[in-house]
């Protein structure tokens, strides 16, 4: 019992010490950016060390928490432009759109590690690839959930329940793209489970990952441009996000929010990766 009582105090002082240590240590900004992008996009195709070293660093985790706090506080309290039909629900931009950004970045990382696996044949890369895809799926589902809430206040037919108007709304080109992305990665998981040999599984799923991703991306760029859409952007504009559309005040929150959610995704992935690296320790030796 004594030990249990003491523990919270220990943790607290440890956290305080650690934070102050990090805050004191000034990280050069260009290096910060470099590591950030290397971590996310897995651009370190040549050197394997960076991603693994970054994984154990704590500055970006603290940054993630700080930015998330900022997103929640500023996102809910700061002034937003009031547009017809959207009004206050526009605050969902900080959450809904960021989920899709994060999902796409995580899937991209998954493909980069799949390519890397085919080049190096190291099982570590396969583990990275799988975990990035798994967390990407989670963010995709969250994107759907936040989108469904938003839709039920803006697009849904007020005379119908939002459940009933779903079949009409789901024809949205961007929802089609998102659904395809999720289906592809669900299929990826099914394919993984259907092969028992570890090396073979890694190789075949890496091939499928690359093939599907290469066909998915043209879809996401093309389909919203040729189908009619309720989404911002749509037929004659940039379907992803028109950067001229978004208000300056909102930009102040939106960009940090994207970084925050992406960092959170990478953080969760890195924990999962570390867990499975420990699990597969004997195999990897």
């Amino acid at each position, binding site marked *: 019992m004594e030990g249990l009582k003491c523990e919270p105090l220990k943790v607290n002082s440890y956290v305080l010490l650690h934070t102050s240590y990090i805050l004191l240590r000034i990280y050069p900004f260009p290096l910060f950016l470099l590591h950030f992008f290397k971590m996310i996009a897995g651009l370190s195709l040549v050197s394997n060390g960076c991603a693994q070293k970054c994984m154990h660093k704590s500055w970006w985790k603290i940054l993630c928490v700080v930015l998330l706090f900022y997103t929640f506080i500023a996102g809910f309290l700061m002034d937003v432009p009031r547009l017809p039909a959207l009004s206050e629900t526009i605050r969902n931009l900080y959450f809904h759109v960021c989920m899709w950004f994060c999902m796409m970045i995580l899937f991209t990382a998954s493909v980069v590690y799949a390519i890397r696996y085919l080049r190096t044949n190291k099982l570590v890369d396969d583990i990275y690839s799988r975990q990035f895809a798994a967390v990407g799926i989670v963010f995709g589902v969250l994107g759907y959930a936040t989108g469904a809430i938003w839709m039920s206040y803006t697009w849904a037919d007020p005379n119908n329940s939002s459940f009933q108007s779903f079949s009409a709304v789901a024809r949205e080109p961007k929802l089609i793209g998102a659904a395809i992305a999720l289906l592809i990665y669900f299929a990826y998981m099914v*394919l993984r489970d259907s092969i028992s040999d570890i090396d073979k599984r890694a190789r075949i799923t890496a091939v499928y990952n690359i093939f599907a991703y290469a066909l998915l991306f043209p879809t996401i760029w093309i389909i919203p441009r040729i189908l009619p859409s309720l989404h911002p952007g749509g037929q004659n504009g940039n379907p992803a996000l028109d950067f001229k559309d978004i208000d300056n005040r909102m930009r102040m929150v939106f960009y940090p929010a994207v970084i925050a959610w992406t960092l959170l995704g990478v953080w969760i992935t890195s924990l999962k990766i570390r867990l499975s690296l420990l699990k597969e320790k004997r195999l990897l030796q």
Partner: protein
Amino acid sequence: MPHLLQRRNDLKSLRHIFTLFKKDLLLEIRQQYSFYGVLLYIAATIFVLYMALESPESNVWNGLFWVIQLFISINAVAKSFLQESRGRMLYFYSIAGPRDFVLAKLLFNSLLMLLMSLLSLALFSLFLGNPGVKAAAFVGLVLLGGWSLSLVFTFLAAIAAKAQQNAAIMAILGFPIIIPQLLLLMRLSNAAFTENANIPIATVLLLVALDAMVILLAVILFPFLWKD
């Protein structure tokens, strides 16, 4: 001198592709049950549709037609890799390169699927009527669509065969990937069904570009599937 060598290699691989293609054709001619099996599949499915609905509207016709094309292509293409036993694959491994092998398969399946598409179009028009206004353009679209389907599913058949799975996993892997191309094809054929609408050439070119990309990806990625 090097370019002469290159030329000789190109010729050699062309010959390999041709030989492998001829072998697939010969197998098809000698074991006709699979060809007639697919043919019967087409006829039976369309007959079921004929029983289920009479004279569908053009958009229903369109949707049904492309969904049936999808299932035909899975059935026609699936066996191309699944029929090769492990020992025979080893034999091919020793006599031909992976690129020649996959290109021969793509070629054979494309031709097979083009034939099947034409047959199913004929049967569809016979039983369910043909709502098409621009008949020639629609036949071209059907051929293009059949080709696209066969390319994507040939590569997925290679993956499914390596995973030692049946055709079911091919459907799971393939449906999400093929949705965009099917969407484009359905839009194009809707344009072919309406009197005044022009068929957008840009979309047709887009489909051709997607097909080219599938071939490229297959050539790049197949060597990794090939070695065991």
